[in-house]
């Protein structure tokens, strides 16, 4: 279980995040929505151990997270792929860092790439892939090390609508097989409803936790077409319109 306790962070004297707390249980997903630049990415950096909170703590099964760990995978904005490494090397990087033997890591990376629909592109470089393909590679890279928690930082924000929908479904289908709990930050309410079992709304800078909604329709591939989703979206819109 991932637990965020009263997370607070400021940069250069300016408060970015104030008193954010939540728990993420097994097989759960949390979508965090907030306006662009509100501090959502800071929250993920704290959860992933890439930055330290000024106050509060992050616990993974009651153990404090003080630095990045293979137990938590992060999909960064703009995919986070290294342009000088081939696709297969990018996916296998986490395993390489963990000291997994070369043959095994390449085999696992290849299998993970196939799972997200990237086949026969092993030795290409990221720049030769489209944005959607790069995002698939980023998803494969995050899942290949079998993390216990996934963190996704606006993973589909720079993609066109159709590619975004396809990749949301790819993420859901991989999640259904692996059941890895994840926290996703996004500024899109539709994305939050599609990918979040619970949805947390943050205020604009500093980001404070304002409301948490349950999403009973989570997991339904056509969730946006359901009546329940329509009502949830309306409620979310009302909440954010008063805030942002």
């Amino acid at each position, binding site marked *: 279980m991932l637990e965020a306790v009263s997370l607070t962070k400021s940069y250069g004297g300016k408060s970015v995040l104030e008193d954010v707390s939540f728990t993420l249980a097994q097989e759960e997903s949390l979508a965090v929505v907030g306006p662009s630049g509100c501090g959502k990415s800071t929250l993920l950096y704290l959860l992933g151990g890439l930055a330290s909170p000024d106050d509060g703590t992050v616990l993974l099964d009651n153990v404090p997270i003080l630095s*990045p760990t293979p137990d938590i995978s992060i999909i960064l904005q703009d995919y986070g792929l290294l342009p000088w490494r081939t696709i297969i090397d990018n996916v296998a990087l*986490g395993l390489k860092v963990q000291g997994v033997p070369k043959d095994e890591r390449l085999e696992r990376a290849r299998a993970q790439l196939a799972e997200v629909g990237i086949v026969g592109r092993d030795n290409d470089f990221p720049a030769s892939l489209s944005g959607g393909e790069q995002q698939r590679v980023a998803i494969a890279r995050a899942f290949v090390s079998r993390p216990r928690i996934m963190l996704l930082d606006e993973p589909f924000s720079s993609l066109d609508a159709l590619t975004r929908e396809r990749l949301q479904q790819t993420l859901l289908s991989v999640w259904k097989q692996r059941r890895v709990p994840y926290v996703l930050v996004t500024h899109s309410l539709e994305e939050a409803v599609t990918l979040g079992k619970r949805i947390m709304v943050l205020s604009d800078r500093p980001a404070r936790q304002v409301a948490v909604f349950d999403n009973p329709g989570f997991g339904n591939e056509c969730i946006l077409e359901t009546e329940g989703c329509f009502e949830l979206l309306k409620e979310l819109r009302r909440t954010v319109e008063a805030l942002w």
Partner: protein
Amino acid sequence: MVGWGKPIIHYSAVILVLGLLWKLAAMALGGVILPHPEEAIRVFGYALTTQIFWEHFLVSAFRAVSAMVLAWVLAFPLGLIMGSMPKVDRVFAPFVFLTYPIPKIVLLPVFLLLLGLGNSSKIAMIGLILGYQILVTTRDGVKSIHPKYYDSVRSLGGSHLDVLREVLLPAALPHGFTALRLGTGVSVAVLFFVESFATNRGLGYMIMDAWGAMDYLTMFTGILGMSLMGAILYEIANFMEKRACKWMFLRNKG
């Protein structure tokens, strides 16, 4: 694309245009101080069959290549360290940037006194001038690496060594190679200068010796030899850059 076809076509076209301009200039100047290109090329072609030309050529090539290797192995790692370690940079950067504008070539007499009249002083002089370029370009290049790449490796649990191997080194290579490639011109220019003194081997010596004897055809043989060497060094650096940094030469599909 890595290959020799395109450079050969490009060089042929450039040689043709320069040859025409040369011919016009030679006709205008009477063909003595500036010999006609066909005559110079004929003499150059003959020189290629002589042992003495290749002695000069190989001595010059040895000096230039040794200096480039020396500059690379010292300046590239230092640029990498300065660019990635702010504490080290704070100590060394003022030394580098205060001494950068000094024309290092004026130190040649000092180098000759300290390292002698042989190859060492010449190699050290060229290496120093080229090394500055590689150092500054690499250091600035490392500083411009986007933090997301560090985060990318750190988020996977990567250590400092992993960051060095997976981010710093590959991201700095193009900057180091660009400096090396662009530095070939400077290296050959400095080579000519340092070979004008205290030596009786090398293309620079060949040019100056022929100039003193008013043997302009031999002088142009040396000039053409030096141009050929500069072009070969440039293409080798270019080839190495394209091999080591394949990802730089791809079109982004977006």
